[in-house]
């Protein structure tokens, strides 16, 4: 009994020493694990200018937000007094001089049309238009509130509906899931191009826009026709539309090729 009593106070120190040694081993595993994980990430192949595991992560996020997406959810609108100063960021894909006379909107993948359709600005101005004042979010981390006027993409697509998966006639409202899942939009030169998911394209506030803050679009803001899609970052709001294509293939996207999220939803 006396030996036990003598030893007992020491026991805790001995135990602590043993635990300390074990914790040293755990520390090595811990830091080795962090180092290994970061090294594995850094050595991973690139996919669209971002390492593949992160690209997979972005695509996982896309699925999550696509599931949470509701076509009926309108983005907030503002009144005229809340409009903020214009801001110009990029003119990618608009290097060439704008040919206003020769400009046509080329449509591909339209249901019932076996050839591309060419539309003039007159055709587009003849369609019902609407105005909205929405917030425009740049992926850089700033936003502006602007007033836009144009044709609702949904209204436009009633006239030129996308191909359907089933081959049946398209129904934008009641059977949107039967539409081909993607839209590709490019500038006339093809220098800038964005891919959109169909649910975002047929959102009721997605607009083919020709007027900004009460004035016709200036060239630098995308004359004669630009996309305004408030459920997406600015990078998807393509200026100077040349072509719209409804497609089953996931379209290429200018900024997704440079490491950004393809979905870029807000």
């Amino acid at each position, binding site marked *: 009994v006396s030996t036990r009593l003598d030893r007992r106070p020491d026991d805790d120190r001995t135990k602590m020493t043993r635990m300390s040694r074990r914790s040293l081993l*755990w520390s090595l595993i811990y830091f080795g694990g962090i180092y290994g994980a970061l090294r594995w990430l850094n050595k991973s192949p690139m996919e669209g200018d971002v390492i593949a595991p*992160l690209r997979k992560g972005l695509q996982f996020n896309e699925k999550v937000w696509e599931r949470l997406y509701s076509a009926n959810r309108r983005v907030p609108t503002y009144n005229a007094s809340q409009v903020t100063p214009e801001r110009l960021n990029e003119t990618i894909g608009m290097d060439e001089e704008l040919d206003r006379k020769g400009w046509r909107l080329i449509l591909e993948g339209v249901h019932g049309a076996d050839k591309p359709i060419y539309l003039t600005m007159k055709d587009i101005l003849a369609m019902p238009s609407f105005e909205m004042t929405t917030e425009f979010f740049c992926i850089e981390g700033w936003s502006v509130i602007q007033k836009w006027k144009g044709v609702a993409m949904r209204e436009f697509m009633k006239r030129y509906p996308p191909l359907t998966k089933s081959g049946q006639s398209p129904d934008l409202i009641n059977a949107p899931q039967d539409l081909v899942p993607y839209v590709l939009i490019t500038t006339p030169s093809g220098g800038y191009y964005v891919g959109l998911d169909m649910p975002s394209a047929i959102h009721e506030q997605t607009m083919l826009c020709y007027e900004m803050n009460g004035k016709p679009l200036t060239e630098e803001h995308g004359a004669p026709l630009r996309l305004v899609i408030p459920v997406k970052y600015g990078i998807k709001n393509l200026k100077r539309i040349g072509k719209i294509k409804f497609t089953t293939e996931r379209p290429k996207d200018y900024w997704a090729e440079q490491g*950004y999220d393809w979905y870029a939803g807000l």
Partner: protein
Amino acid sequence: LTDAPPEPDQKVLYRKHALATRWFHWINFPVLFIMIWSGLMIYWANSVFVIRLPYLAFEPHLALHFTAIGPLFPDKWWSPTAPGWVPDFLVTMGQNDAGANVRQLYSMDARLADGMAWHFVFVWLFAINGLLYVTFLIFSREWKAIVPKPRAVLESIHVVLYDLHLSKKPLPVRKYNAAQQIAYTGVILMGGLMLLTGIAIYKPSEQSWLTRLFGGYSVARFIHFWTTMCFLGFFLIHVGQVIKTGWNNFRGMITGYELVTPSEKAQLVEKS
């Protein structure tokens, strides 16, 4: 057993941190690091925040003015050139304005896409780890050791004075003192605020109610950024205090145990 109590200088083991706490803590450490690091790469793309210092002006009439000190991070902080003595495996290759290759300690400028990818993937770990931790706090009743009581406000003043060697009165023996309770509870709330303001700027259309709740996009971004700076402040003080308190305490966060005197243990166990 009626053994005589051990001598006062003989230390005994005190079980301080649950296994879960230690996992949550050590998972959070690298994840939070990645979140802040990638977050700064995102911030770089629109690095608009400045510190405003107040000053009194006498002309044209007496008034309080603010002068901006900015930018918050000088340009060279984003990708500092590595001194010659830093070995190659610790540097990253970048380009200077002239397009020449330079050795850099790290590179954080012009990496918005990278920053966003890391941020929006690792946020899952940050969120899940944080939510599990809070759930654990609630169900293990461990929150009682962390959430400060009203008197902690006054007590924490004593702690600060004691730490600055301005007070000699010893601190009460407790798992966490009042200042720690305020700091740890605050940092958990800050984590929640980060998630909410993060969603507000990540999905300002889908979750516009949240963006509006924080006063709009730029205000939410402002709160998100300055809360990050508070995280960094917490981190510096936390690491400083851990170093000051010593190995026994630090080891507690790894092994779960601390060596204390029997009388300390009696007080610690009684209060828990």
